[in-house]
């Protein structure tokens, strides 16, 4: 194997490991807030490192530049839209779900209930 292939494999393994961490967090956490926090691992480290491995592979093999642009766009869209959906889902869950480990401090309830 060449050096580039080893670099690509290592980067992709890091990304898939953190995607696995996020999946395990979604399966193991006790309530929905913990699951939302764990699922952020997939959208940050998992996506960043898998796309980075793909970009290294594409650049080293001299495939067309439009592929690199599309990969960068996928990364930018995921990093730009995922926090918005997480925030909307967290606010929705706050209104409808009872948290399982009770929050030790809750400023949101005191300050503006609706």
């Amino acid at each position: 194997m060449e050096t580039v292939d080893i670099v690509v494999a290592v980067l992709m393994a890091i990304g898939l490991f953190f995607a696995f961490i996020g999946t395990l967090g979604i399966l193991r956490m006790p309530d929905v807030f913990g699951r939302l926090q764990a699922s952020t691992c997939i959208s940050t480290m998992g996506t960043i490192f898998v796309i980075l491995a793909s970009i290294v592979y594409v650049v080293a093999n001299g495939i067309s530049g439009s592929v690199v642009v599309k990969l960068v766009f996928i990364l930018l869209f995921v990093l730009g839209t995922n926090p918005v959906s997480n925030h909307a889902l967290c606010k929705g869950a706050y209104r409808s779900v009872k948290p399982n480990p009770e929050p030790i401090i809750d400023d949101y309830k005191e300050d503006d209930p609706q």
Partner: protein
Amino acid sequence: MKGFRFTAWLSTAIVCFLFWMLLTWSVAPRELLWGGLVSVVVAAFACRFFIHSSAFYLYNPVRLILLVFYCVIIFFWEIIKANVSMAKLVLSPKISYKPGILRIPGSPDLKSDYGIAMVSNCITLTPGTITMETAQDQEGRNYYYVHWIDVAETDRDKAGDAIKGTMERWIGRIWK
């Protein structure tokens, strides 16, 4: 059309045309003509959602270089630290943590919509914290309501420093 301004329209059209050129990846005259037409029409409808104040704010090369530097170095390092701590929490044999929702104060210099949105998105993207709401009190100070999965600090100011780290100072150099 309500709220239409020429500078906002021009700036949005330039960004739309750049997106078109990067996605089609060709410089044939037919592609450029259609791209220009479509981006002009789309920008006329979309500019009032994107730009409310100074239209050419981000066309400054210093700010663009700072933005790229922030995204590649500072933000990436924060994400790696937070991810490793989240991995430790998930892989521990018995999961136990103390969640909490804190009201942390924002920086007084950062008042524009894009700046507040970028700070709250960066807080949400680090695993372990989610911004639930941003608010503004009568004196014009900004607050972020942050759900923190493992509360280490119940004092609001110190918790704000621990959550935001150096991110807000760097974003304050990019946005007003």
